[in-house]
């Protein structure tokens, strides 16, 4: 028979050992994991402008093609700029901005609570003499976050390419958003209608052909069985791009 004292001591020792093992594993592996996350973000950004990067080449290609990183505020003004390996404006490197925190700040302000003004990052890529504007996206899918990057051509209305990622959407259903056939549909779609109003690109259940002809430029085919993920992608694209409308206006006017 085991005494209560034995059980208490046994569990305490067990918990301490487990805590030590897990925390040392976590801190030992953290640098490698963070590097993975960094490289993945760079790979994503490069993929959105159709540059083929893998884990080993991502960093070099990123430094070569991404000529400028900017962060803009709600008024569309550039508040941070990082170019050529140097911080030119502001004190945060746009690459390091955590979109989730910025969205949280934005939500706090919307709810009438106190928060710092959010800033949103933007990456400018130069490829074959043309400029592309890459906007990071973050939203909610069915089981967890979905994210992505959308690259716009220099007219800031035509989509050049997109990439999507997700934490844990259903394999074979919602998870298909991260596959090429789904993403390729976005190429060449437009963000503004003829009158110049912002019309976000929607994932359309039943297929684009069900839309009226003048809307087909703003839609892509949804994945069957992935309705909630599709809706999440819709909301994500609309909500994230809205933050850049002022910037786009200013940029086109200048």
């Amino acid at each position, binding site marked *: 028979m*085991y005494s209560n004292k034995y059980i208490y001591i046994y569990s305490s020792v*067990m918990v301490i050992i487990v805590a030590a*093992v897990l925390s040392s*594993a976590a801190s030992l592996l953290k640098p490698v994991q963070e590097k*993975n996350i960094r490289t993945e973000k760079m790979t994503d950004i490069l993929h959105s402008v159709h540059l083929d990067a893998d884990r080993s080449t991502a960093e070099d290609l990123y430094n070569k093609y991404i000529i400028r990183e900017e962060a803009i505020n709600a008024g569309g003004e550039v508040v941070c700029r990082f170019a050529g390996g140097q911080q030119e404006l502001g004190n945060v490197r746009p690459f390091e901005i955590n979109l989730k925190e910025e969205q949280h700040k934005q939500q706090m302000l919307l709810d009438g609570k106190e928060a710092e003004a959010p800033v949103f990052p933007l990456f400018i890529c130069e490829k074959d003499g043309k400029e592309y504007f890459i906007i990071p996206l973050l939203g909610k899918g069915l089981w967890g976050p979905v994210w992505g990057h959308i690259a716009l051509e220099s007219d800031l209305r035509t989509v050049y390419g997109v990439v999507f990622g997700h934490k844990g959407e259903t*394999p*074979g259903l919602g998870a298909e958003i991260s596959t090429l056939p789904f993403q390729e549909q976005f190429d060449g779609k437009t963000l503004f209608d003829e009158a110049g109003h912002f019309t976000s690109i929607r994932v359309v259940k039943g297929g684009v052909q069900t839309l009226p002809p003048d809307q087909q430029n703003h839609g892509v085919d949804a994945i069957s069985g992935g309705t909630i993920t599709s809706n999440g992608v819709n909301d994500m694209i609309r909500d994230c791009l809205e933050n850049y409308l002022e910037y786009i206006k200013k940029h086109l006017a200048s």
Partner: protein
Amino acid sequence: MSVEKQPKEALFAPKNMKLIFNPLNKENPITVQVLGICSALAVTVKLEPAVVMSISVLAVLAFANVIISLLRNTIAPRIRIIVQLVVIASLVILVDQILKAFAYEVSKQLSVFVGLIITNCILMGRLEAFAMGNKPWPSLLDGIGNALGYAWILIVVAFFRELFGSGTIWGFPVLEYTGLYHIGYKNNGLMILPPMALIIVGIIIWIQRYRNRELIENK
């Protein structure tokens, strides 16, 4: 504690080999013991996650069985379930961290399912039924055997679900090459939904019992 000295057994004595081979068929954790069904439904839409999931379960189950078996004489019966859970949970977190560091792509695909190994009934089942009462070496074999028994079912189910549900095997569009789509063949959307995994497991159980009559329960 018995004072009788037991004769030393060879490492791969027939009795030990049974621990590996029985769970593949007669004592299969999924088709006979009906454990770990939940994950068999969740990760079998595509072949690749199913294979990585099998390897992760193999690692966790083998180590957990050995650790519990080493500790078995020190664990107070009143807290044994908690101790088993702590061991499983720590191992799963370790596997998850290691995958994130060294197999990042795969870890992204498996995402939540790695964490869900903790809730896999096979693990608790084996720890409670075997490792608590056996020496480390047989426990290791038992762990490997049961994980393999789990793995082959998962892989067979995933193979059929991916082939008929998405028309691919390991991501390669095999059905596209056969030209079946031109004569009006379509992927079966039902295959990628969870109920179909249950039906395939049911078919495997049917075939298994047809071939192995001892498994049929006597009324």
